[in-house]
């Protein structure tokens, strides 16, 4: 299982390195999204108030694109069928693609956080770095897991461009909320204190664990015709 996972993650990341999609296009895209939000809600104090939420919204939209891309690779020339026919362990596929996705997401979030700090003049307090990091790790893993799970479900279905968001967005709503609150706590937005953050972090962890186990088990049946 893990051998397969490693192979697939390596394959996906190599393809990414070849096509440089994330670095050249998703990152700028995420950046623009942040700017657009801030612009749509032009008044400063509002922006600062909701900066953490915006970071995670932007991450979400980028996630959609990343997942789409991740499975476009597979369905373009019937690789999914080939995998099933070759009896590749679905759990391995799931974990592998999740891993690759998580790596790319992490990259992205790092950038978004920087943008937030600069654009929205959000402040990172030393005391809260741990919480912030933990939040990002938990949220990233969770998003990657659920993204891969539903991506696999939507892949192959015609019109997946649009099925995916429909499936994904409602499910990740809790992540969005949890991550936002935790980040607010870490950044001390609107006088939130670090302590407030931990329960939310717990929520994220639970979410990640849930989809980790669930996905590993469910992915096989899911990609069966």
């Amino acid at each position: 299982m893990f051998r397969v996972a490693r192979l697939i993650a390596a394959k996906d990341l190599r393809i990414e390195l070849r096509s440089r999609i994330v670095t050249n296009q998703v990152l700028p895209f995420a950046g623009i999204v942040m700017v657009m939000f801030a612009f749509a809600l032009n008044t400063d104090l509002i922006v600062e108030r909701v900066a953490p939420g915006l970071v995670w919204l932007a991450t979400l939209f980028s996630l959609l694109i990343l997942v789409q891309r991740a499975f476009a690779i597979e369905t373009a020339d019937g690789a999914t069928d080939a995998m099933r026919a070759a009896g590749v362990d679905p759990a391995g596929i799931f974990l592998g693609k999740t891993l690759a996705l998580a790596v790319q997401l992490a990259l992205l979030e790092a950038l978004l956080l920087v943008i937030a700090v600069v654009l929205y003049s959000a402040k990172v307090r030393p005391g809260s770095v741990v919480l912030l990091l933990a939040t990002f790790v938990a949220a990233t893993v969770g998003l990657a897991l659920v993204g891969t799970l539903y991506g696999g479900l939507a892949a192959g279905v015609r019109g997946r461009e649009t099925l995916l968001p429909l499936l994904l967005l409602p499910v990740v709503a809790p992540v969005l909320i949890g991550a936002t609150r935790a980040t607010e706590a870490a950044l001390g937005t609107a006088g939130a204190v670090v302590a407030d953050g931990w329960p939310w972090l717990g929520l994220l962890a639970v979410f990640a664990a849930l989809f980790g186990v669930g996905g590993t088990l469910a992915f096989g049946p899911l990609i069966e015709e």
Partner: protein
Amino acid sequence: MAVTDTQIAVAGPGEGSARNRSATSTAFTRALGVATIVSMALLALFGLFLSPADVVQNESVRILYIHVGTVWIAYVAFGLTAISSAAFLWKRTTSLTWDRIAGASAEVGVLFMALTLFAGAIWGRLSWGKFWVWDARVTTTAFLFVTYIGYLAVRGLGGSHQQRGRRSAVVALLAVLEIPLVHFSVKLWRGLHQDSSVADTTKVQLHGLMLFSLFLSLIAFTLLYAWLVIHRQRVLAMQDALEDKGLDHALEQRRQESDR
């Protein structure tokens, strides 16, 4: 537009062959380079020492010389990109040289715009207390910046040179329309950002030396821009030429396939 003419002249095949193909510099560009350095030094002198501090902005006003200089030259650069793109698309004048000029100018323009944003952000920290505010001009500038990054991405898409030229030319002609938007954004949404205080003299009178330093910065950055574009444009020409050379070799190999 004198800049353009010289560029086309040097980039033209006649002159090109006369020039040592392995180098991008000519007597003209060397002179230009020297002039650039000198003017930069002068700018530093006037900008940092001779010109007085501002009443409101005090010392931080010196950022103006970078901020405004770069942004106006960036405008010029994008304008030139648009013009040469049009020239490329127009059947009568079409030539890859125009495409290269467009590309080079856009690259330098993006560079300058980055400087503008940087200087602006620093200045903002000093005078608004924040690196970034959601003022109209500031934001539209960011959009303009991203648009040209997109333009460069389109140039990088690959395909034949002609295809690269056509695609990017179209994008350039559309992108340039954002400049007026940026320029008038202050009037459209009366925001925090400085209104055109230099252009029309009815506004607060800039101190004479300040005005002089500002124009000095314009000259300095113009020279720098010209120097960069000419060289970049020649490098691009050499790259294309190199690819053509490579093609001859590739053709040989391809024909070999028949013998095995």
